């Protein structure tokens, strides 16, 4: 290879760079969070939190908004508000207004799946207020960029567990799986500060109901293994009255706080004909806090306590499950267990919607108190 050839190569590699559309970071508005609402006219209203890297500006983040009949159209419209090119490659969170979520969010996710530029790791959440209001919160209240804050809020609460850490890919997979319905975290405002207010229950891609945020732990137990989580529980004092060492007080309830060392659950279809399911929840716990002194050294008392805890958790699960049955949403995947027992292994959503309200689930809780700290 002679020098002339080498020169040609070097020159061509210089000129070839112009084949790509340049994306200089100073000219990009990197979208961090999208808030999606539907206006009364049926248009999509997008509120975008963008990062901009401009020497002259003090603020790194900016909120822009746009309207359009498609998401892409709304982004273009929002682009008119800013002197930056909006880049969707690093979207971390899609926030849907509650009304939008009730109408179904699949159309907005479809474009996200179709566009190879949008990351699959993007998280999804529902906002109790219109998404626009959530995104326009003043930054003083949270001392950081709202998009980043919401993303971290969800992710930190979901660390080591599946929920409420639901990515685009998770949602889509659950949506398309027969006999499974997705859940998404619901975020609300309290004194102008966002917090996780509850668990949005979806039927297909539509928001149909809500569970209180106190049930987060129970949901996580159903989703898979959990470790090092706190369980706060209140039992009736009645069964323990006889064991109380001190003078029996007037308190009606016994409050306990456990640390779950290991928690797991297993469901199975017991009888296919009568649709009887059994769900076993197993927990190894350490007792950390108790509001009254009861002699836990006593084998009998400990057994009693475990029993009462089991009963309480069981009734909680039954309450959650009856709500879910009323909503006809199946986030606990009982449909999957039914499907794999079927001969052809296929189950349509309509079929399962008819069967689901009639299934019976027997919740069996096994709590095992491993340590109870200082005993007295």
């Amino acid at each position, binding site marked *: 290879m002679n020098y002339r050839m080498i020169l040609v190569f070097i020159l061509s590699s210089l000129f*070839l760079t112009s*084949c*790509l*559309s340049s994306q200089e970071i100073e000219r990009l508005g990197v979208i961090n969070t999208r808030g999606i609402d539907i206006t009364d006219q049926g248009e999509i209203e997008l509120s975008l939190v963008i990062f901009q890297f401009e020497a002259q500006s003090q603020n790194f983040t900016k909120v822009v908004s746009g309207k359009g009949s498609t998401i892409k159209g709304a982004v273009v419209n929002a682009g008119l508000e800013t002197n930056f090119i909006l880049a969707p*490659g*690093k979207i971390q969170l899609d926030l849907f207004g509650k009304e939008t979520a009730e109408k179904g969010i699949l159309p907005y996710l479809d474009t996200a799946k179709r566009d*190879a530029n949008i*990351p*699959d*790791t993007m998280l999804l959440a529902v906002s109790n207020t219109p998404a626009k209001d959530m995104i326009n919160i003043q930054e003083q209240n949270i001392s950081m960029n709202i998009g980043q804050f919401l993303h971290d809020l969800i992710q930190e609460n979901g660390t080591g567990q599946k929920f409420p850490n639901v*990515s685009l*890919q*998770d949602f*889509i*997979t*659950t*949506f*398309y*799986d*027969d006999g499974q319905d997705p859940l998404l975290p619901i975020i609300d405002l309290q004194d102008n500060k966002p917090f996780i207010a509850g668990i949005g229950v979806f039927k297909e891609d539509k928001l149909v109901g809500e569970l209180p945020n106190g049930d987060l732990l129970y949901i996580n137990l159903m989703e898979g293994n959990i470790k090092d989580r706190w369980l706060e529980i209140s039992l009736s004092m009645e069964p323990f009255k006889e064991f109380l060492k001190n003078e029996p007080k007037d308190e009606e309830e016994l409050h306990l706080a456990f640390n779950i060392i290991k928690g797991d659950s297993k469901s199975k279809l017991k009888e296919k004909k009568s649709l009887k399911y059994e769900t076993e929840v197993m927990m190894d716990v350490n007792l950390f806090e108790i509001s009254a002194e009861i002699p836990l050294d006593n084998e009998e008392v400990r057994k009693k306590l475990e029993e009462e805890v089991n009963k309480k958790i069981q009734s909680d699960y039954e309450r959650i499950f009856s709500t879910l049955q009323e909503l006809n949403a199946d986030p606990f*995947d009982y449909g*999957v*267990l039914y499907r*794999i*027992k*079927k*001969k*052809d*292994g296929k189950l349509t959503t309509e079929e399962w919607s008819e069967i689901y309200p009639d299934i019976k689930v027997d919740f069996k809780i096994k709590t095992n108190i491993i340590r109870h700290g200082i005993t007295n």
Partner: protein
Amino acid sequence: MDISPKIRNNLKVRPLYILFMIFGLQVGVGIMGAPRFIFMESMQDSWISILIAWAAMVIVIYVMFQILKQYPNADIFGIQVDLFGKWVGSILGTIYILFFLASLLSVLLTYVNVIQLFLYPTFPPIIIGSSVLLLAHYCVIGGVRSVVGAAFLFSVLPLWLLFLLYDPITRMDWYHFLPVFQSSIPELLKGAKSTTYTLTGFEILFVFYPFLTKKNKVLKPALFGVTATTILLLIFMIISIGYFSPDELKKDDWATLTLFKSVSYPFIERLDYIVVVGWMMVILPNLVILLWASSYGLKRLYRIKQKSSLHVTFVVLIVLVGFIKENHIIYKITDYVSQVSFWLIFVYPLILLPIVLIKKKWLSKKKKGSDAK
């Protein structure tokens, strides 16, 4: 022409390298989209289809080896001329060459398509195509040894990508495999057939055979080559079934690449970009080997100088890549190549073997007859 080409000893390589030639040529653009096409036919039992395809490949490789064994040092071009005479043999050989070129075109088009889809929608195809092809062209100019070297190097180097799969593996749902054995036998066979495009490549044994030393030791590495590809395909298939829900997988054209989309690190958020670019290493052996095989075939059949045929193919391919940009035409070409390859690669050797054996018997009888006289 000579039925057995005379290959100088310094150009010959050890039989082990046929493993990398086969593996390098088989693993390419096909594997990027294969899970979807197999899944469409045989659903959650797709992994069985792949095992069936593997068994078929083992049989075909064995048959190919038996054909080649009847000659001291021949390749497919020579064998066909020997069996069917100069004219028919040349036509059949030309079909092989055209097939190599068509596969080359479809690989190039598909990769350009993926680059445009994932990275730069406005990047002119002719530029991507020519820069990749220039690399392959340069390698082939270096001769057969550099082709083997490239095949070896670039089949080993991209293997690190497999480590990234740990993330989709942790997200798999094993219930997707249940209930097993739902697909009927025809469905499983159809699924096995849909692997054809991905698994073509072991036909290179027919062309490369004269370049190998120690002919009796060729069979084993060749079988290892197809087995390695099968394992790779099986890994991607199983993860895809577990990771995607059925309806989703049926829609995803590039399932294998999508698997990498959920991998993310604080320092590299979008690993899928790197995977798409890194995939160039995966397809480079494809381009190099196919380019070499077609130019070598032209030299064998028509005594065209390898360099000049290389230049011509290069220009023709670049022009084609520049003009074809519609997705559906690319799919059609790929589909066409896949159809042809099924007959040419899986079925044709099975027909060829009895002809070779009969001819050999007839010859030895004739020889015996003439000896008796």
